C-alpha cells in the first residue's frame, strides 16, 4: 500500500512546533533572543520553500532541517574573519619552544580547594561568566560538546566542521576556561 503523502499546514506551525524549534535552537546557541530570530527565520524560509516540500518527511523534521541550516549559517557568520575573536594562546606556536607552555599561562596550584564546590552557587556563576567570556564560536562548540554532550560526529555534521577543528576549539576553550577559573575563583 503506498504511504500517505504528508502535506504542510502552516497555520498550525506555531502552535505545534514553535516550542520544539525554540528549544532546539537554545540548546545550540544558548541565546533566547537569537533563538527566537532563528525560529522566525525558519518559519519564513519554510513558507518560501513550501512548494518544494515533497511530503516524504514529517513537517517537524522538515522544519528542523531548515533550522539546522540556520544554525550553520549563524556559526559561519561568527566564524567569519570580521567577527572572529581568538582566545589567548597558552602555548608557543613557533620557534624552538613550539608546543611548550607560555610562562604566564603555566597552570598554578589552586588555593581554594573546597570539596563542596559543586554546591557553590557563586562558583557556578563564575563558571558561567568564564564560558560567556569565550569568543562566541568557542563557546558554541564547547557548550554543544561539554554541556549538551553531543557526539563529536553530530557537532561536526551540524556545524560543518572537521573533527580535528573541533578538538582544536575544545582544547583552546578548556585551557582558557581553566585559566579564567584559576584567576577568578581558585586563586582569587
Amino acid at each position, binding site marked *: 500500500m503506498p504511504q500517505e503523502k504528508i502535506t504542510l499546514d502552516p497555520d498550525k*506551525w*506555531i502552535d505545534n512546533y514553535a516550542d520544539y524549534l525554540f528549544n532546539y535552537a537554545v540548546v545550540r546557541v544558548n541565546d533566547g533572543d537569537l533563538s527566537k530570530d532563528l525560529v*522566525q527565520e525558519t518559519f519564513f524560509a519554510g513558507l518560501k520553500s513550501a512548494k518544494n516540500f515533497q511530503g516524504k518527511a514529517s513537517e517537524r523534521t522538515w522544519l528542523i532541517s531548515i533550522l539546522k541550516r540556520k544554525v550553520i549559517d549563524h556559526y559561519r557568520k561568527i566564524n567569519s574573519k570580521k567577527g572572529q575573536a581568538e582566545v589567548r594562546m*597558552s602555548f608557543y606556536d613557533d620557534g624552538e619552544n613550539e608546543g611548550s607552555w607560555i610562562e604566564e599561562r603555566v597552570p598554578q596550584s589552586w588555593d581554594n580547594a573546597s570539596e563542596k564546590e559543586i554546591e557553590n552557587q557563586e562558583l557556578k556563576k563564575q563558571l558561567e561568566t568564564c564560558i560567556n567570556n569565550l569568543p562566541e564560536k568557542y563557546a558554541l562548540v564547547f557548550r554543544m*560538546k*561539554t554541556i549538551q554532550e553531543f557526539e563529536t560526529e553530530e557537532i561536526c555534521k551540524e556545524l560543518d566542521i572537521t573533527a580535528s577543528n573541533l578538538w582544536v576549539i575544545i*582544547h583552546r576553550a*578548556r585551557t582558557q576556561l581553566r585559566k579564567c577559573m584559576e584567576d577568578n575563583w581558585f586563586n582569587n
Partner: protein
Amino acid sequence: MLKKLQITCNQATTICDKSQYKEASFFEKLKLTLHFLGCKICRLYTRQNNRMSGLYKDKSIACKNKINYLSQTDKEVLKQQVKEFKE
C-alpha cells in the same frame, strides 16, 4: 620509535582534553603517559582538568534537565509576523 612517542605540552593537553570525553585512542593515551613522566606542569593541568570536568558535568545535568519554551506573548508576535509574511 621513541621519537614517535614524544609529544609537546600542547599535544599532551589536547589528548588530556580528548580523554575527558573518552575519545583519546590507546596510542594517544600511551604518549600522554610517557609525557607525564617528564612534565609535572601537564600532570597538574590534568588534575585540574579532571576537576573542571566535574564542574562541567554538574552544569550539564542542570542544563539538560531544562526545557526552553516560548512565552504566549512571543507566540502571538510570531503568529502575527508569519501572517504578515504570508500576505
